[in-house]
C-alpha cells in the first residue's frame, strides 16, 4: 500500500458521484443564484423555509460524505507517516481514536439520512475534505482538517441540532448533539497538537495556520457559514471556544465568512443586473 493516496483514488461503490471544489464552483446553479424569493432572504436552515426539508436532506448528505472522508483522512494519517520520526506515537493514537469516532458518525449519518428520507448518492460528493487531508506534513493536516473542517463541522452540527430542536425532531437533535460532542474533541485535538508540535518552530506553525486559513476561506465560499442569518450555517462560537479557539481566532473566521457573504451578494446582484 502506497503512502499518500491521491484523492482520485478514494474507493467508493457505484452509488457515489464525486465532484471537486472546482466542479462545484464552476456550476452556475450553485455558484450564483438568481432566486430572489422572500423565503430565501434568510438562508439559515429553519423549518419555516419553503425548501427546508430538501435543504436539510442535502446538508445531511454533505455531512455523511464529509464523515466518510474524515474517517479516511484520519486513517491515512495513521499510515502515511513513520511513527516517531514523522508523527508522534500519541498523535497517531488520537488519529486512530478519530477513526472510530468518524466511523460512528458515518453510521449515525446513514441512520439520519434514512430517517429524513434520502438515499446514499442522492447528492454529489465534494471531495475537498480529503484533499485537505493529503498534505505531506501532519501538522498541516491537523490545521486543515481538525481545526478548519472539523471546526466547520461544529458549526454545521450546531445548526442541524437547532433545526431539529425548532422542528420538534428529537431523533435528529439527539444524534447531532452526540456528534457535536465528538467534533469538539477532534478540534481540540488539532489545537493541542498544533501548539505542542510547533512550540519551538514558529515558521511551521505559521505555515499550518496559513493553510488553515486557506481551508477556512474555501469553506466560507459564498457565505455558506457566517453569523448572519443570510448564511445557511451559523458560526458556533461557544463550542469553538470549548475546542480551543480563542476569541481572536473566532473573530477572524467570522470576518472572513461575512466578507465571503458580501462577495456572494454582490455577485448575485451583478448576475441579476445582467439578466435584466
Amino acid at each position, binding site marked *: 500500500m502506497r503512502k499518500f493516496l491521491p484523492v482520485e483514488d478514494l474507493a467508493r461503490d457505484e452509488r457515489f458521484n464525486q465532484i471537486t471544489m472546482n466542479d462545484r464552483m464552476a456550476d452556475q446553479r450553485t455558484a450564483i443564484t438568481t432566486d430572489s424569493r422572500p423565503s430565501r432572504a434568510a438562508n439559515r436552515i429553519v423549518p419555516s423555509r419553503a425548501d427546508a426539508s430538501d435543504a436539510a436532506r442535502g446538508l445531511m448528505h454533505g455531512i455523511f460524505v464529509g464523515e466518510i472522508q474524515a474517517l479516511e483522512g484520519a486513517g491515512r494519517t495513521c499510515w502515511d507517516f513513520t511513527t516517531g520520526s514523522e508523527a508522534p506515537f500519541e498523535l497517531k493514537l488520537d*488519529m486512530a481514536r478519530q*477513526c472510530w469516532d468518524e466511523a460512528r458518525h458515518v453510521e449515525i449519518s446513514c441512520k439520519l439520512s434514512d430517517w429524513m428520507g434520502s438515499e446514499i448518492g442522492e447528492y454529489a460528493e465534494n471531495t475537498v475534505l480529503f484533499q485537505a487531508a493529503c498534505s505531506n506534513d501532519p501538522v498541516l493536516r491537523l490545521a486543515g482538517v481538525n481545526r478548519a473542517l472539523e471546526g466547520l463541522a461544529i458549526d454545521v452540527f450546531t445548526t442541524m441540532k437547532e433545526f431539529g430542536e425548532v422542528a420538534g425532531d428529537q431523533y435528529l437533535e439527539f444524534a447531532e448533539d452526540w456528534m457535536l460532542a465528538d467534533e469538539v474533541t477532534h478540534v481540540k485535538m488539532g489545537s493541542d497538537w498544533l501548539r505542542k508540535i510547533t512550540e519551538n518552530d514558529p515558521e511551521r506553525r505559521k505555515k499550518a495556520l496559513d493553510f488553515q486559513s486557506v481551508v477556512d476561506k474555501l469553506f466560507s465560499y459564498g457565505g455558506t457559514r457566517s453569523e448572519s442569518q443570510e448564511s445557511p450555517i451559523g458560526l458556533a462560537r461557544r463550542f469553538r471556544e470549548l475546542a480551543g479557539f480563542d476569541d481572536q481566532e473566532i473573530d477572524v473566521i467570522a470576518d472572513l465568512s461575512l466578507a465571503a457573504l458580501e462577495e456572494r451578494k454582490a455577485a448575485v446582484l451583478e448576475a441579476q443586473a445582467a439578466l435584466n
Partner: protein
Amino acid sequence: MADSKKPRAPFAPWDRRELPGLFSVEESARRVGAYKWCELKLFEALGGWIATVPELDVKMRLGAHCYKHAWHAELWHKRLPELREMNPDRLTVAPNEHMVRFIEALTEPEAPELTIEKLVGVYRVFIPHFISAYTFHLNNTSDITDAPTMRSLRFVLQDEFEDWRDGEMLIQSLIETPSEVDRATNHQASLEKILLAAGGITGSGTIGFNTPEHEGALI
C-alpha cells in the same frame, strides 16, 4: 458478623492463584514490546486501508478496529516502564526479520478490488496469532506478580475475539465464488508461511514451542 479479630488466611479457599510464572520480568517486557510493535503495525495498516476499500460497511468496521488496536498498543506502551523498560521504544521492535517481512506482505494489497486479501491477512492470519500469543501469556504468567499484564491481556483478548468474529463474517459475506475461496486461501497460506518462519507474534516460542527456523520454507 464474624469476629473481626479472628485471623483469616491471606488467600481465601477459592483463590487458587499461584506465585510462580513462566516469564521473568525481562521476558515479559520483551513480549510486551513485541505486542506493541505488532499492534502498532496493525492499526496503521487498518487506518491506511480505510480509504482503499469501496464497501461502506467494511470501511466503517476498519475504522472502529483501527482504534481498538491503537488502544492495545497504548496499553502495552504504558506497561513497558512498569516492567523496568524506561525507554519503551527500545523494546518496541519486531521479534525478527520474518515478522517485518510479514507486515510488508500483509500491507501489500491496495487496489479496491482486493478487500478479501486485506481482510484475510488481518482476520484469518494476524488476529488468530494475536489470540494465541495473548492466551499463552495469560495462561502461563504469574497470577500474582504479573497481574497488571493479565488484566490488560483479558481486555485485549475480548477485543481480539470480537474483531476476529466481525472480520470473519465480513470475509464470508464477500466471498461469492469458488475462485474467491481460492483467492482467500492462497493469500492466507502465503502469509501463514511467513509467520511460520517468524515463529509467531513474539518470535520463536510464542506459544511455548521453540519453533526452529524453517530455512527455505518461504521460497
